[in-house]
């Protein structure tokens, strides 16, 4: 069974066709990576899958369900969570509060119950906290639990954002350039986290990445894009050696 199927996806921004007929399938348990030079449409594909943009053409099928027209806030409930290239954390909140927001898709309390903080709300809050603490343990974040995000170094923020996505208990995790802005060591750590997320938590990963060492270390399947069109697909090695990919990156 295919987890996410992208079928003939295309989007226009005015006269620019940012993504042009991209099709691929992500199998459960895979780490699927999209690479490509700047402006190839990688992040646009992410924004299409997380429904922030509406596709002009094509279909998105997740868990045998058409999600092409599902509103963006419903995507999390279906089991897709994402991170952002430039980190979109809630800066004026603590790490704990950020992660608890990741549990929002599991919130079942009603407004009036929350107003009086009845026992049901309290119990659910404790459940959320337990779930969050598991993620904190998993990603080794206890030291930062009560720090405000705006006081944290960049590398830690990247991990916190990944942790927040994991708190939704996703089936599919979208990572937008997990290594951008990280040092060599932090990038190596990131590779371990991604492998752990896949093998220990059983979460499928779809990521956009530039760092080829990270891509080769973790990817099962790589898709290369240029000018919104797919140019090669296969293992990391196959794609790296593909003449069109070399041409796209180096010209000529």
């Amino acid at each position, binding site marked *: 069974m295919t987890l996410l199927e992208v079928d003939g996806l295309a989007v226009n921004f005015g006269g620019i066709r940012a993504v042009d007929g991209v099709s691929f399938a992500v199998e459960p348990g895979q780490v699927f990576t999209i690479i490509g030079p700047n402006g190839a449409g990688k992040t646009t594909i992410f924004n299409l899958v*997380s429904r*922030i943009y509406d596709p002009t053409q094509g279909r998105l099928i997740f868990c045998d369900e058409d999600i092409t027209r599902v*509103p*963006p*806030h*419903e*995507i*999390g*409930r279906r089991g897709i*969570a*994402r991170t*952002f290239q430039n980190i*979109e*954390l*809630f*800066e*004026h*909140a603590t790490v*704990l*509060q950020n992660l*608890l*927001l*990741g*549990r*929002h*898709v599991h*919130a079942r*309390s009603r*407004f009036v119950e*929350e*107003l*009086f*903080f009845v026992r049901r*709300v*309290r119990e659910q*809050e*404790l459940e959320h*906290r*337990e779930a969050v*603490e598991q993620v904190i343990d998993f990603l080794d974040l206890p030291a930062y639990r009560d720090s*405000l995000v*705006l*006081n944290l170094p960049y590398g830690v923020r990247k991990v916190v954002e990944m942790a*927040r996505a994991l708190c*939704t208990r996703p089936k599919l995790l979208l990572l937008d350039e997990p290594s951008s802005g990280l040092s060599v060591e932090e990038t190596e750590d990131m590779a371990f986290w991604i492998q752990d997320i896949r093998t220990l938590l059983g979460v499928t990963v779809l990521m956009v990445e530039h760092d080829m060492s990270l891509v080769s270390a973790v990817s099962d399947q790589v898709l290369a894009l240029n000018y919104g069109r797919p140019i090669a697909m296969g293992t990391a090695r196959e794609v790296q050696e593909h003449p069109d990919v070399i041409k796209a990156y180096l010209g000529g």
Partner: protein
Amino acid sequence: MRFVFKTSYAQDLGLFRDSVQRNWYVALLAGLLVLPNLVPEYLVDISLVFIYGLCGLSVMVLAGYTGLISLGHAAFLGIGAYAHVYFIHDLGLPWAVSVALAAATAAAAGVLVGLPALRMTGVYLAIATLAFALIIQEVFTRWDHVTGGLKGRPVDKAVIFGVSFAGDVAFYLLCLGFLAGGLWLTANLLRSPTGRAWVAIRDSEIAAQSMGVNLGAYKTLAFAYSAGLMGVAGALFAHKIGFLAPDIFSVLFSIQFLLMVVVGGLGSLHGAVFGAAFVAMLPVLISQARDSVPAWVGAMAAVFGSSASESALLATGRFVKQPGLEPGLFGLILVLFILFEPLGIFGRWMKIKLYFSMFPLYKRATFRRQKAYMRSERLR
């Protein structure tokens, strides 16, 4: 310095950090209950602090926690006030029912304003709410048979379940009760998924959306809750001033509410109350100063001879009697706060507390990084 030893997750769900903090709040409440015996002459002013506290809470939820700026909150206050007076006087409803309905009416108006707010942010939203407030003020003026038009409407003292709250002490306690209730309900919301969703919207809409927060629903909810609180404050305010006229609920009043949360400290419940105390008590302080400052200055200038004393007395006397003094001071203080203390009175309060708890190790740099403006303040 005290450290709280945490042994269960439930500890983090409490309203207070630990029993020591809770005891301080109990002591504060006890102090407020005996206050009427200590300063009977200021009770009316302090009641206004409590009513403004509810208003501050309302604006805080919207501007401080959800990041939506409203320049029209006086309109919700007016809707609450007029609705309440209409319900008790014209329809003869019981007081408690009338307040609940006034809150519901204001909340409904809040939803109406909140709907276009889904498509607007920052300055555009502020302008839209400003327009709404102007329209509502016009409605107050024209809708004669409900609002009394320009002639205004007298308001009787509150009578709840046959108990009269006409006395200063009784009304003081009533307002205190409502403020405490409002604080409790709002604090409950803020430690629940709804409050977290609001903060998430304030800090990053796109991330909130990706984490499953329905932006439209939560923004509308914030508007409705905020307007509802304002409606309750309006009902109390009607009793406080005893006479409703359309020109009370002007744009300047709305700006005063915004000033309240900025001076108090955006993003904290304490800030709402501090700001309310500031805005309500400043006029009292100024009127006190009008009486006593010229005499002090005169006495000080007496060192340089009697003619200097006399002219100093005259000059300060003329200065403090200037009619524009109050708004001028308000403006000046707002500018100074934004320049030197973006976290408001609450931020200053935190620093003073930290200074004493860390004495003699306090360093100024502790708060340096947090001096950055909030995103909502930058008006994207």
